[in-house]
């Protein structure tokens, strides 16, 4: 009777826990979505920054022309005159996702603009990502850890920075794909089901479609497989989790046009093939071990090992020969800069010039993952108690991602899910210990377990944890477990038993300590929430296309970029070419619909170097370069008037470096005075005569009479000068964007004779000068 009651009670408890965790997940999804809406509420529903504008433009094209035209799209408005094969050079995952959402909605008669869909794609997918985190962590350490990790991920600032509403970039969907692929891998590893393995390959395919970061997956999983093999954890489940992924995944990956043969040709993928060979050798060894007697096996081992070594050696030699034959040793520049952090700054200025490719500073860790940084070590310890295949994977994940995030700020994004999972595990384990200590010390605690469970969410987490564990055990029992795993599962099975109850009793902490510790943990969580909300609201929601500043007389809005692009689209011919530094290329094509010379897709270094050279050359040489590229307008961004620091003058040294990398007559020291970059009266003549200086500071002295640059905090070196080959056609309200037109060649060429000084001509000439002076100076 009593047994019946308890089983009924457990069923009720499971049901209650499931419903509760379902609602918690829904709420986490709502949280993940809504915390990313600050940008829409505080600013407006716009696409942010640079790359998202390109993605938006591509999505528009997709929704208008269909998928085949998108695949074969040759864009003649960028990279003039080279053009760009968009279909073959873009990761189509994000575009196709947003396009599908738009298509679905419109076929349901929900008329949304493409822009709206694009703006909200990232928040939607961050909700998916937190659910995927729940699944992954649940596979590793149970549902309680899963829910905690999902809640943490929903609001981790690092991820928010890349997925606020309007930040329509690859990472928005890629992080979800990354976590989900890992989940399916772990799921396959835990179940050994070929079904999940296939799903895993498909999820990997989606990741390949979405982001170049897929190489992280295809290196991390082989690393984990190798780890499992080395630590003697080889099992058929491991084989099923890995082999289909490599075969199907590589086949699928090579279907993505931008990856194509890279999937088998570049070094980033070689690790997976090597491990693929190794796992087969190991599988063969295990198989032979099974059918041979121990004595025969010893003989066979020596035989197979020697043969295997020879084969591996041969394969390795071929690989090395292949790799050595390519100039970059088969590695792309970005991957090389991952392995050797100083590589990019030494050899590829174009990679080093992007701020998100720089190594992060220490404060950025506190900014981006906040308290998770303290919880991660605890999580790692928790993962070792006990160490399973799944938890070893998570440990490997956090270790590698910490390394990569230390190389490149941008990869902080990969670290964030790992940190969330680890912290989720740590928090959940801590709550587990503390609530259990309280429970066993409270009088009548065992009877009132149910009530305890419902009382606080943390308690329910513990309850869930148990539920999940037992569920998992039931699942696991159905499988034919390997020797190593059976040990683990035995432990699990024993847990709810009386034996483990006794064991648990031994781990009890004092009641007061537990209560205080729980209180402190809740406080820590509260700090995290406050920080995340602050980061989402203040730090990461600015669209960077519209800027605001608060001063004593209220809020100032700087909408100069859109003003300039609108001017271009209304006042220039459709086929006119606009030259600017590559940062503004995507925005110019998307917002002004004008052809640009270079844009944010940096595939042709020479072309960018040409523009960099033009910007660092004197006016006449620059005019000739631009004229040879059929440029009509030159656009520069200038922050000196309002103090906008990321303007072209601050980026100028990169133009010099990138230009000088291809055209050696541009030398960086010519622009530096004693190694210092300055634009005041101490600046070098080369600097003061280059096009960028002239276009930025032309007529600047008229604003305040002193020409004080508020970004560089100095008066500029050369205040009064005229432009001979360019003319100013538009300057925005706050002078942030200035547009110049190339003057046509002179109709006549003047003779050498000096102007005569007789009365008649001097009066006419002064008249002319007077007239001319009026024009440029208003």
């Amino acid at each position, binding site marked *: 009777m009593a047994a019946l009651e308890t089983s009924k009670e457990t069923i009720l408890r499971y049901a209650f826990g499931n419903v509760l965790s379902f609602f918690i997940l829904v709420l986490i999804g709502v949280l993940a979505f809504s915390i990313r809406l600050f940008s829409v509420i505080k600013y407006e529903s716009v696409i942010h920054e640079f790359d998202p504008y390109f993605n938006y433009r591509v999505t528009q094209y997709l929704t208008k022309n269909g998928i085949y035209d998108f695949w074969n799209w040759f864009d003649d408005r960028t990279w003039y005159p080279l053009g760009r094969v968009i279909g073959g050079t873009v990761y189509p995952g994000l575009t196709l996702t947003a396009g599908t959402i738009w298509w679905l909605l419109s076929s349901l008669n929900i008329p949304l603009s493409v822009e709206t869909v694009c703006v909200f794609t990232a928040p939607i997918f961050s909700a998916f990502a937190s659910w995927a985190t729940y699944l992954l962590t649940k596979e590793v350490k149970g549902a309680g850890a899963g829910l905690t990790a999902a809640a943490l991920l929903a609001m981790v600032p690092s991820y928010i920075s890349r997925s606020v509403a309007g930040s329509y970039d690859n990472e928005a969907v890629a992080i979800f794909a990354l976590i989900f692929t890992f989940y399916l891998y772990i799921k396959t590893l835990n179940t050994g089901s070929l079904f999940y393995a296939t799903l895993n390959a498909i999820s990997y395919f989606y990741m390949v479609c979405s982001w170049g970061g897929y190489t992280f997956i295809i290196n991390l999983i082989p690393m984990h497989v190798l780890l499992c093999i080395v630590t003697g954890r080889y099992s058929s489940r491991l084989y099923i989790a890995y082999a289909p992924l490599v075969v199907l995944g590589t086949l699928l990956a090579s279907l993505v046009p931008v990856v194509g043969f890279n999937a088998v040709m570049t070094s980033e993928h070689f690790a997976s093939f090597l491990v693929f060979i190794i796992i087969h050798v190991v599988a063969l060894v295990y198989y032979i071990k099974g059918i041979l007697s121990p004595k025969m096996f010893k003989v066979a081992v020596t035989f197979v090992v020697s043969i295997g070594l020879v084969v591996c050696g041969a394969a390795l030699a071929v690989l090395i020969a292949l790799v050595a034959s390519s100039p970059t040793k088969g590695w792309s520049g970005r991957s090389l800069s991952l392995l050797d952090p100083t590589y990019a700054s030494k050899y590829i200025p174009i990679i080093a010039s992007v701020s998100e490719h720089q190594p992060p500073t220490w404060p950025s860790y506190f900014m981006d993952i906040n308290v998770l940084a303290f919880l991660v070590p605890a999580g790692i310890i928790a993962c070792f108690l006990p160490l399973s295949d799944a938890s070893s994977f998570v440990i490997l994940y956090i270790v590698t991602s910490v390394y990569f995030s230390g190389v490149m700020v941008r990869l902080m994004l990969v670290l964030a899910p790992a940190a969330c999972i680890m912290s989720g595990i740590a928090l959940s384990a801590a709550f587990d210990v503390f609530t259990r200590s309280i429970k066993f010390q409270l009088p009548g605690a065992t009877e009132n377990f149910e009530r305890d469970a419902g009382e606080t969410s943390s308690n329910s987490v513990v309850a869930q944890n148990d539920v999940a564990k037992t569920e998992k055990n039931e699942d696991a029992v159905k499988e034919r477990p390997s020797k190593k795993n059976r040990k683990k599962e035995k432990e699990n099975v024993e847990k709810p038993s009386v034996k483990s109850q006794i064991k648990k009793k031994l781990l009890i902490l004092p009641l007061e300590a537990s209560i205080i510790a729980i209180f402190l943990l809740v406080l820590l969580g509260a700090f995290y929430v406050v920080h995340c909300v602050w980061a989402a609201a203040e730090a990461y929601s600015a669209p960077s296309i519209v800027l605001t500043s608060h001063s004593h007389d209220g809020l100032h809005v700087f909408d100069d970029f859109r003003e300039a692009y609108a001017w271009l689209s209304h006042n220039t011919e459709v086929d006119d070419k606009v030259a600017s530094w590559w940062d503004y290329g995507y925005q110019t094509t998307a917002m002004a619909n004008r052809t640009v010379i270079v844009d944010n897709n940096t595939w042709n270094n020479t072309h960018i170097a040409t523009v960099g050279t033009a910007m660092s050359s004197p006016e006449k040489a620059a005019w000739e370069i631009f004229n040879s590229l059929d440029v009509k307008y030159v656009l520069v961004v200038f922050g000196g008037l309002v103090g906008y620091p990321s303007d072209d003058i601050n980026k100028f040294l990169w133009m010099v470096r990138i230009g000088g990398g291809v055209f050696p007559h541009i030398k960086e020291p010519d622009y530096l005075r004693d190694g210092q970059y300055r634009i005041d009266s101490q600046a070098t003549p080369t600097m003061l005569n280059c096009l960028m200086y002239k276009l930025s500071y032309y007529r600047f002295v008229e604003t305040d009479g002193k020409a004080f640059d508020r970004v560089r905090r100095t008066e500029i070196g050369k205040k009064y000068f005229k432009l001979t080959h360019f003319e100013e056609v538009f300057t925005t309200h706050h002078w942030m964007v200035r547009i110049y037109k190339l003057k046509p060649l002179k*109709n006549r060429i003047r003779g050498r004779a000096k102007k005569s000084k007789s009365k008649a*001509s001097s009066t006419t000439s002064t008249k002319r000068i007077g007239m001319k002076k009026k024009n440029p100076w208003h």
Partner: protein
Amino acid sequence: MPKLPLFLILIPFLPFLCTSFSPENPSSRRVLVLLDDLALKSSHSVYFKSLQSRGFELDFKLADDPKIGLQRYGQYLYDGLILFCPTTDRFGGSIDLAAILDFVDSGHDLIIAADNNASDLIREIATECGVDFDEDPAAMVIDHTSYAVSETEGDHTLIASDDFIKSNVLLGSEKIEAPVLFQGIGHSLSPANSLVLKVLSASPSAYSANPKSKLSNPPSLTGSAISLVSILQARNNARILISGSLVMFSNRFFRSGVQKAGTLTKHEKSSNEQFLTELSKWVFHERGHLKAVNVQHHKDGEADEPSMYRINDDLVYSVEIYEWSGRSWEPYVADDVQVQFYMMSPYVLKNLSTDKKGRYFTAFKVPDVYGVFQFKVEYQRLGYTSLSLSKQIPVRPYRHNEYERFIPAAYPYYGAAFSMMAGFFIFTAVHLYNK
């Protein structure tokens, strides 16, 4: 009364009537002639008559007439300007240096005749056009070997020059037999200036100096560097004739006979009339003015112009080029017109063949490079207006379904793949059911 409606109808056409060289209405063109002295009108009447007989309406004004002006209400009143006023140092009315330069820069033609003692204003105009007169105001071109033999052995400033530029476009197809008489100031051109041309240059023994005074310093301008008559074709195809002598346009020079010193042949009549008349035809666009119309390109075998080509497409390009003959557009016939298929550098450069009726055409294959190309015709020949056509056309790579489906060279691989699959199937069947 019936005149008023006619006038109203004409109002919309006023801009066309008054623009520069306009193919639509070229028959009557107005030219303003500014003179120092109205006596020039009769002393140079032969030259003016020849212009008038070709349909030009000449408007003679004194250079300091306070009522003259080149434009009214933003419209130019004249299509050409002749400055036969070398000593004027200030024009009347609204005309000044800037007005004249604007007149040229808006595509109108100009003839300037200077003289020794030319005013600074005239020099300044010439300098702006790239012609530098000798800075010494009293200097004249002197030549002691190829002067014109005359009754009085003078100071050898009357020069008989036959060093013409060799160009049928500029000087007409009829050969100029006799030398041209010249008396006046010399000028030099900058060799870097590609727009100006020496039409009549002095002989190697000439120099520029004041004939009245003794030569103390070596003259600044010597030899064949001295240009006597030069032309300029501006980038907007405005044409300018600059001569260092006003008297060479006069009836007296037109009619006088000439014998070059050192030669025995005595020509009955100098070539001044022929030379200057032919040049004026060039200046006023009666010769050497080309237009290119009807640029067409399409795929071989199709008629419509595509918005984009694919790599390795075969295409046909054609353009029609006509030359203005003074009355009508005549087909221009030449064998050196080239088209470029250009993206930063020419990928295809082909001569166009012509059907002698003005149509130029060629066919070629689009190179195996994608990008934004241009059809470029850059036709710049001596004396002709420069033709510079460019038409942008993108070239795309193959679509995904335009590649070959089965490549013969890959049949071993297809075979390998399918035999592998079959082998695996058989192996599975045998392995599973053969126990």
